């Protein structure tokens, strides 16, 4: 069950234990007593053999939780700033000590402070060291730090390229996943150029976890270096024959990106329309499949994505538009509208119908669906209906007129967003009619 309408997550207070955990105790004990050096001769006469001797060392850096707890006790901004500065100083000296054990912890704290708005740039190199570490825990925080703190304007980020390259070829899929994720989020053009080959290789792997990430990474690479788009063309050949919905979803995103960027790609991919129609049909007809089900509808996110791609492929092309007429009519009439997911699909269908060369019956159906949306109780639905009416009013002037009075009602709505949308729907040509309409309503 997918409780959309309830909308409420049980967010309430939870008691947080204040005593340090056992593992924290063990951690602290280890710091102070690492050396097991025998004591001096004088002490050896003592009958109690003391196994370890305390050695003067800096206290262990506190854990992230401790820091958060401490900061939350601050009562003023100034107090918080003071605590943070103190901790920053401790972290800086810990970084200087080149301590591998606590680097992970320190960077985690730094990221927290960064979120609160305090400068954290001195941790950038440390993130790189973490990425280069062999441990998964270190890599995870290191890559997160890289995504949050680094960007292509600093030269430091180029040092990551080699690490990412190694990690893209790692034996553990999760490490490969981390590398793909980071490259896909903040890879610069140089990095993308260097590593595009690796991404392309991973796009052809049979591991669906990696394949879906590689697809989105490829989108990022194409955005940064559009000339590399050709390189990914062969790999897209059998992307749509995947069973895994995650891979399908990201593949459709990749195809959409390629089609939007290049008219050649667009005409090349038009041949995929039958396959897309088939996938969409399976989603609608498949019946209940619990793993993709959202409020009784099979994978609405994927349906919306496919509809969007169909829109791009069908625009201005008679054959493709004809091939998708049936399925669009099916989706428009069969989708459940009682939940938000159904409406998202319907909305996308309407936009597609309006954009492609659909037959007139279908267009009328689409406008009527929009009209129904305008009367919906849900404000969100009314808002999206108005924004799409705005787009269609240029092409289907007459059909929109039928819903004139409803639009006028929306003008009176108290919601600012809806009012703005309704005002925009009133285009230059028919503004006189609308004004007359408003006067006649008063």
């Amino acid at each position, binding site marked *: 069950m*997918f409780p*959309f309408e309830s*909308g409420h*997550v*049980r967010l*309430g*207070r*939870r008691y947080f234990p204040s005593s340090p955990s056992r*593992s924290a105790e*063990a*951690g602290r*004990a*280890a710091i102070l*007593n*690492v050396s*097991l050096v*025998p004591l001096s001769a004088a002490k050896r006469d003592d*009958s109690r*053999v003391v*196994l370890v001797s305390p050695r003067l060392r800096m206290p262990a850096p506190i854990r*992230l*939780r401790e820091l958060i707890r401490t900061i939350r006790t601050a009562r003023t901004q100034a107090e918080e700033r003071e605590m943070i500065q103190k901790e920053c100083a401790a972290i800086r000296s810990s970084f200087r000590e080149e301590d591998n054990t606590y680097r992970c912890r320190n960077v985690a704290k730094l990221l*927290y402070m*960064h979120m*609160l*708005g305090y400068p954290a*740039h001195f941790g950038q190199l440390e993130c790189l060291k973490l990425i280069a570490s062999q441990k*998964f*825990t270190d890599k995870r925080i290191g890559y*997160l730090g890289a995504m949050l703190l680094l960007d292509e304007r600093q030269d430091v980020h180029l040092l990551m390229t080699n690490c990412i390259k190694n990690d893209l070829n790692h034996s*553990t899929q*999760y490490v490969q996943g981390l590398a*793909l994720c980071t490259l896909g*989020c*903040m890879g610069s053009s140089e990095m993308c150029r260097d590593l595009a080959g690796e991404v392309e290789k991973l796009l052809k792997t049979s591991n669906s976890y990696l394949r*879906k*990430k590689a697809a*989105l*990474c490829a989108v990022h690479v194409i955005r940064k270096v559009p000339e590399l788009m050709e390189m990914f063309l062969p790999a897209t050949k059998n992307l749509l024959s995947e069973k895994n*919905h*995650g891979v399908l*979803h*990201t593949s459709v*995103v990749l195809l959409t990106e390629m089609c939007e960027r290049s008219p050649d790609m667009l005409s090349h991919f038009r041949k995929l329309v039958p396959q897309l129609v088939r996938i969409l049909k399976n989603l609608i007809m498949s019946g209940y499949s619990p*793993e993709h089900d959202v409020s009784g509808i099979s994978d*609405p*996110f994927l349906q*919306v994505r496919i509809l969007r791609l169909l829109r791009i492929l069908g625009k201005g092309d008679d054959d493709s538009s004809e091939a998708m007429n049936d399925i669009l009519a099916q989706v428009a009439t069969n989708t459940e509208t009682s939940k*938000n*997911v159904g409406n998202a699909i319907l*909305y*996308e269908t309407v936009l597609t119908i309006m954009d492609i060369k659909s037959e007139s019956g279908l267009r009328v159906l689409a406008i009527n669906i929009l009209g129904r949306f305008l009367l919906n109780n849900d*404000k*969100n639905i*009314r808002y*999206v209906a108005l924004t799409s009416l705005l787009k269609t009013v240029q092409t289907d002037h007459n059909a929109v007129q039928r819903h004139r009075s409803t639009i006028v009602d929306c003008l009176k709505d*108290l*919601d*600012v967003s809806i009012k*703005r949308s309704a005002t925009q729907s009133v285009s230059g040509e028919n503004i006189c009619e609308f004004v007359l309409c408003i006067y006649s309503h008063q």
Partner: protein
Amino acid sequence: MIKAILIFNNHGKPRLSKFYEHYTEDMEQQIIRETFHLVSKRDENVCNFLEGGLLIGGSDNKLIYRHYATLYFVFCVDSSESELGILDLIQVFVETLDKCFENVCELDLIFHMDKVHNILAEMVMGGMVLETNMNEIITQVDAQNKMEKSEAGIAGAPARAVSAVKNMNLPEIPRNINIGDISIKVPNLPSFK
């Protein structure tokens, strides 16, 4: 494309901020403040969409938000994303957090910021939606957490061993054991190094 994902509480304190486009640190904080300012003014029964503020790109961008108890979840998106779809995505995100943290509350997000980032990384990548199936996301997050735990297990062993030895109460080792006629010389054990 999703430009930014922000979670902040009713007073504007950030609980998670992830930007998929580059902004300077100052800009990021300004965006958080401005977004909070815009979103907190909204009434409960209005729609969940807002035009983006001046800082986050103007008219092409929208703020899509949902308010759960003490937290606002705000996604800043451009026109290539379906507004209703993003609303559903926010719901999936919150439900995933709920499953991962068991009755999630604001304190969970406060103390486990890195875990929330990890979960989000399995859902949205580079500003694009990666995975929307809740069970799939949770499986992957759990597997990675297991990997971390097993590493901590191996790495934590020496520390635990040292403290165990330290706490052990070893009796004095006698040098000579004399039981009547038999005299056993206990060899000199090498000192602990």
